[in-house]
């Protein structure tokens, strides 16, 4: 009891000491100063009425919003910085790379902001060009892997589908010239980079599948396709030549003047990719690469088999027929002339199909190509006829068609076939094909003087 009393006293001693701190206070003068200031403040800022309260509340809400923005501004700035930086870094990413997805997503994002079909179509064509450039870079760096090619092809397919849809929209909006221009740009992109694809397709089935996809869905530039498959055909014949047979390449090349010109162009196209980059002038390239060795040329193209070629030509034929018949602004004389010439392509296709049925691949190949070549020519003439329907251009197109028709001699294919067949000397039942085809051929030759 005594102890607790002492303890309490001691505690009180501490408390007492601490209470001395109450003497720490403002001086009278300071207290007056603060009092005066606060009275004045209260006078200047009286109690709010209802209206003022509402205004104040609004202001507070607004300032709370401002404070929120101020608070998150640095975070937002950081976010923008990183996203922007990431996209900038991703700009150079290649397929298969970690940032490639960011790059393609940012492209989609950018496109989604536009509602202008023309801009979108041009952008898609530009994206296709980018994809092709990426393929080129991949090859140069030697970084081609299954994954990177799959990614690239997937993106390209998407771009192509989008472009196709956009061009259709443009056509539907009667913007034929624009659609034509953009498609031309796309075709020249493919043309510039075709060697890249051909060399990739040798090692990867995805690229081959992609090329077939492009051919079926969009249609490759005719000289590319012709060159490619022609190259294939040449390679086939060259291999046979090595086995002791006559090389039919010379036959193909010397058939007539036009074909020789075509062969020159084909050789030009198969020239090195770098040169193709530097100049879009195909004639210049043709001259430059005439000196290319045959082995280089033969390395080109194993991308299409006969079946694919057949279905592609079939698609192109039916598309072309539809377009010639459906073209609204086409001069009737021109339409008749085009349809007349179109019949020729159709006939060649039928012959090719027959040859394919009899498993005579090289003949079928040549005939398919001839048919395709005519079809593609017709398509460009049709475009010209639709977009420049002046009397001058119509007469020049008619003249060209007339010349082409006169130059054609259907018997040349028969001769070619017989020549090849004679040279092979019974390689695989030659008589059978001749018997089946003889009647039809003679009908065809009767039509011509």
């Amino acid at each position, binding site marked *: 009891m005594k102890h607790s009393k002492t303890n309490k006293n001691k505690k009180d001693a501490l408390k007492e000491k601490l209470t001395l701190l109450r003497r*720490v206070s403002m001086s*009278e003068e300071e207290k007056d100063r603060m009092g005066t200031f606060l009275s004045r403040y209260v006078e200047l800022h009286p109690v709010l009425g209802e209206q003022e309260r509402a205004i104040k509340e609004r202001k507070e809400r607004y300032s709370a919003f401002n404070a929120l923005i101020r608070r998150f501004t640095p975070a937002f700035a950081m976010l923008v910085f990183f996203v922007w930086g990431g996209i900038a870094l991703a700009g150079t990413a290649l397929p298969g790379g970690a940032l490639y997805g960011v790059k393609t997503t940012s492209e989609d994002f950018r496109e989604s902001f536009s509602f202008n079909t023309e801009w979108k179509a041009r952008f898609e064509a530009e994206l296709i060009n980018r994809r092709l450039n990426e393929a080129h870079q991949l090859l140069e760096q030697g970084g081609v892997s299954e994954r990177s090619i799959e990614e690239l092809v997937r993106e390209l397919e998407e771009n192509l589908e989008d472009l196709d849809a956009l061009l259709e929209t443009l056509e539907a909006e009667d913007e034929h010239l624009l659609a034509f221009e953009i498609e031309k740009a796309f075709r020249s992109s493919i043309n510039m980079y075709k060697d890249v694809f051909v060399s990739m397709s040798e090692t990867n089935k995805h690229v081959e599948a992609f090329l077939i996809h492009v051919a079926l869905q969009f249609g490759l530039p005719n000289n590319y396709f012709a060159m490619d498959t022609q190259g294939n055909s040449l390679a086939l014949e060259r291999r046979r030549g090595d086995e002791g047979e006559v090389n039919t390449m010379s036959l193909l090349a010397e058939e007539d003047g036009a074909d020789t010109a075509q062969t020159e162009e084909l050789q030009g196209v198969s020239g090195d990719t770098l040169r193709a980059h530097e100049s879009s002038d195909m004639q210049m390239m043709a001259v430059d690469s005439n000196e290319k060795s045959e082995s280089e040329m033969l390395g080109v193209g194993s991308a299409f088999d006969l079946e694919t070629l057949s279905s592609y030509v079939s698609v192109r034929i039916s598309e072309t027929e539809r377009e010639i018949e459906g073209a609204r602004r086409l001069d009737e004389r021109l339409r008749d002339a085009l349809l007349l010439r179109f019949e020729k392509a159709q006939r060649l296709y039928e012959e090719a199909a027959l040859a394919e049925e009899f498993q005579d691949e090289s003949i079928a190949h040549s005939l398919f190509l001839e048919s395709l070549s005519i079809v593609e020519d017709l398509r460009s003439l049709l475009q010209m006829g639709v977009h420049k329907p002046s009397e001058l251009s119509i007469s020049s197109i008619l003249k060209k068609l007339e010349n082409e028709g006169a130059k054609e001699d259907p018997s040349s294919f028969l001769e070619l076939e017989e020549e090849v067949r004679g040279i092979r000397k019974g390689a695989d039942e030659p008589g059978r094909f001749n018997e089946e085809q003889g009647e039809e051929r003679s009908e065809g030759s009767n039509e011509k003087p």
Partner: protein
Amino acid sequence: MKRAEDIEKSFNEAYEAYSDAIFRFCFFKVSDKEKAFDLAQETFVRLWNYSRTGDREVDNVRAFLYKIARNLIIDEYRKKSTYSLDALREGGFDVRMDGHKDIELEVDAREVVDAMHLLDDLYREVALLRFVEGLPPKDIAESLSLTENVVSVRLNRAVKKLRVILKVEE
């Protein structure tokens, strides 16, 4: 909703009752008399701005004032990172003992002020509110945004430390 006169009256009463306490609290926190004065004045300005809307009532004005003061002091600390006792003394530390001419008391008071400054801020603020201002632990907890349990523990430790510093035996 309270009438304007009532609001003003409550404010004046709060000022009369707690202005010195708030000043002290600020003083022991920032160890600067002028700064403490400004902070105390600003605390009452904030109280007025809060009250004058008329639609918000404060249950515990005293605890509310400490809360405002504490927040203002935290802002002040952010502006100036340290308020050391040394800096305070170099700047001319002086405790006014208005109306008290007792030399012995003045010496004692200075001793306690120094002792308080030797305490950690955590213990100083609870000791001040409990033993100088006489706030119950519940109000201290409310003012400092702590739990009562934490307040009790801190008070206990503060007492022990002060005993050592002021040489008051148990």
